């Protein structure tokens, strides 16, 4: 039982790390630029699709990872230039409308280019297979790689945002963008940088998850909802908040799905427990969000000045 719990905690961490990669970009864009970007999930999907294509061309996972990241960055910068730049001064409803339009547009575009049938990307040879953990339970190596790379990105972001000049500007921008601009910083360039970087992180998450999930149109839309839950719980604009909240959501969701039925069996018969358990498990993260927002309306780690 304890080894099962341990592996499920590992599973929760893996989901949390993945959510963090997506939510980090989202919270930066929302926090620094005050822009609601529903199309953030599109970058995640594009990352996965581009990796499949580049893998087909190069036959190397590493090469396709790098190429896909460069391509998602280029796509994000193009989007920023063509669409988002026109939106900064407008209100949130316009953001929602425009970025929802981008979702429809890109999902359909992906269907035209790659077709509607799901695609797949093989696990890199070096990391295929699984390791035996305590209790004889097997764990896929690739999922450990995801956890490791996600934690590495988190550390990198911590240093970048907390201890560099660019990071300082980003934090200042999140607190009071007009003042930063008045102090002579090219705010447009800063925004473009933040937007491109956030999109690239989402693309990275897409590439990393592609060997596990089927790559299909609309794959970014479901995970975007979870990413929004993460940034709301964590506090909008806060990387630290996004990290903590993502791990919380990952753990609550995974442990809920694994043990809800077993816990309920203590109170009721096996048959009703089997019916109530899954329903309760899928509600848990939203219950968590409601509780957090009741106690701390601005999220766990609200960015200063908000």
């Amino acid at each position: 039982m304890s080894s099962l719990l341990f592996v499920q905690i590992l599973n929760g961490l893996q989901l949390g790390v993945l959510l963090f990669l997506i939510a980090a970009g989202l919270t930066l864009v929302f926090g620094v630029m005050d822009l609601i970007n529903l199309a953030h999930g599109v970058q995640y999907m594009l990352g996965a699709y581009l990796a499949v294509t580049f893998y087909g061309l190069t036959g190397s996972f590493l090469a396709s990872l790098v190429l896909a990241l460069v391509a998602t960055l280029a796509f994000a910068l193009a989007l920023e230039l063509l669409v988002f730049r026109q939106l900064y001064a407008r209100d949130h409803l316009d953001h929602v409308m425009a970025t929802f339009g981008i979702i429809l547009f890109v999902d359909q575009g992906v269907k035209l280019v790659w077709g509607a049938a799901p695609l797949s990307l093989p696990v890199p040879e070096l990391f295929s297979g699984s390791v035996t953990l305590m209790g004889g339970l097997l764990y896929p190596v690739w999922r450990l790689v995801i956890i490791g790379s996600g934690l590495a990105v988190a550390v990198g972001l911590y240093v970048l945002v907390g201890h560099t000049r660019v990071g300082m500007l980003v934090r200042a921008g999140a607190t009071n963008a007009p003042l930063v601009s008045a102090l002579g910083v090219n705010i447009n360039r800063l925004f473009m940088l933040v937007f491109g970087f956030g999109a690239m992180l989402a693309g990275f998450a897409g590439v990393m998850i592609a060997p596990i999930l089927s790559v299909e149109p609309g794959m970014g839309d479901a995970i975007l909802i979870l990413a929004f839950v993460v940034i709301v719980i964590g506090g909008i604009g806060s990387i630290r908040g996004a990290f903590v909240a993502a791990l919380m959501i990952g753990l609550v969701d995974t442990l809920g799905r694994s043990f809800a039925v077993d816990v309920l069996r203590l109170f009721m018969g096996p048959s009703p427990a089997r019916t109530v358990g899954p329903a309760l498990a899928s509600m848990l993260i939203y219950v968590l969000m409601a509780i957090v927002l009741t106690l701390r309306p601005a999220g766990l780690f609200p960015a200063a000045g908000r």
Partner: protein
Amino acid sequence: MKRIGFLVTVALAALALTPAQAQDKLKIGIITTLTGPPAVLGGQLRNGFQLAVKDLGGKLGGREAEITVADDELKPDVAVSKVKGLVERDKVDFVVGPIFSNILQSIMKPVADADTILISPNAGTSNFAGKECNPNLFVTSYQNDQVHEVLGKYAQDSGIKKVFLMAPNYQAGKDSLNGFKHYFKGEVLDEVYVPLGQLDYQAELTRIAAAQPDAIFVFLPGGMGVNFVKQFRQAGLADKVKFLSAFTVDESTLPAQQDAALGFFGGANWAPNLDNPQNQAFVAAYEKEYNAVPATYAFQAYDAAQLIDSAVKAVNGNLSDKNALRAALKKADFKSLRGKFTFNNNHYPIQDFYLVKVAKRPDGKFQTEIAEKVFTDYADPHAKDCPMK
């Protein structure tokens, strides 16, 4: 003006020269799903039917066939309005479809009200097999429960002791696991219901690994199955636990699952390698025409076209006597691609069922192949509740 007069004369002359045109065309309306991810299945239905019509020289029962294809968008209300258009506006002689059971539930009444014949080449719900059986409905696939029962029967007979079951948390998922348990009397270690559309199964896979079953039985249609099969293989469980499934590994999902699904089991009334001459010709023709391996959806639609052909021929193209037409359909006087095939009193098939196994062909494509026969001349248990004789 002179020129138009000339054209009219030519047209009239052409009409007079082709007496075969005098008889009206036979109108068929196909209702299938062509939107979203399940469009792969709906497309197979349409392709299978059209291929049969092509093989029969563009004619069904000696009459030229005119086919109208409608997309139900997997929405019951859309399906009803499209089907009403087919029977009331287009006045089709037969409606062929749909893929999904909930669509069948919604279109049965409008089709039957117009006294049109409905041929279902896939969906086969229990209510229309039992008490609510309908003289105008003919099913060329199976009764839904039977596919799940194949795996339960196989697990029981092959001495599997402990199983782990998983299905989506909705009615068809519960029916599936009950169908499996109908024949399987061993120990069920756990039954897990996951949200419909779940993509990551790592938490469930960990439970499966901890439970250490002899076999798992899953019902995870479409994209769910694609993800689960890949992750099951990655978790290293494929060598330890036998993979039994329904609607999870077939020719519609194999292009995405590929090697990950190799050696996994499903249940079916047919497989592309079923050994009879008409089937081998069908598979070859389908692959040439559509560049894909046919799944059960395609073959059942092909049989639906053959069924219509045989019945229209038997009544000499005269469809006004519906009782004679229904009697002719009930005879099922055609060479089914699955070999032996008869209709029960409820107009559902009596047929053999097989355990099928995923294999890689020499040309690199994947298909299911027959592993062993599980049921012979198997009729569904609901037929006894049907008042039709």
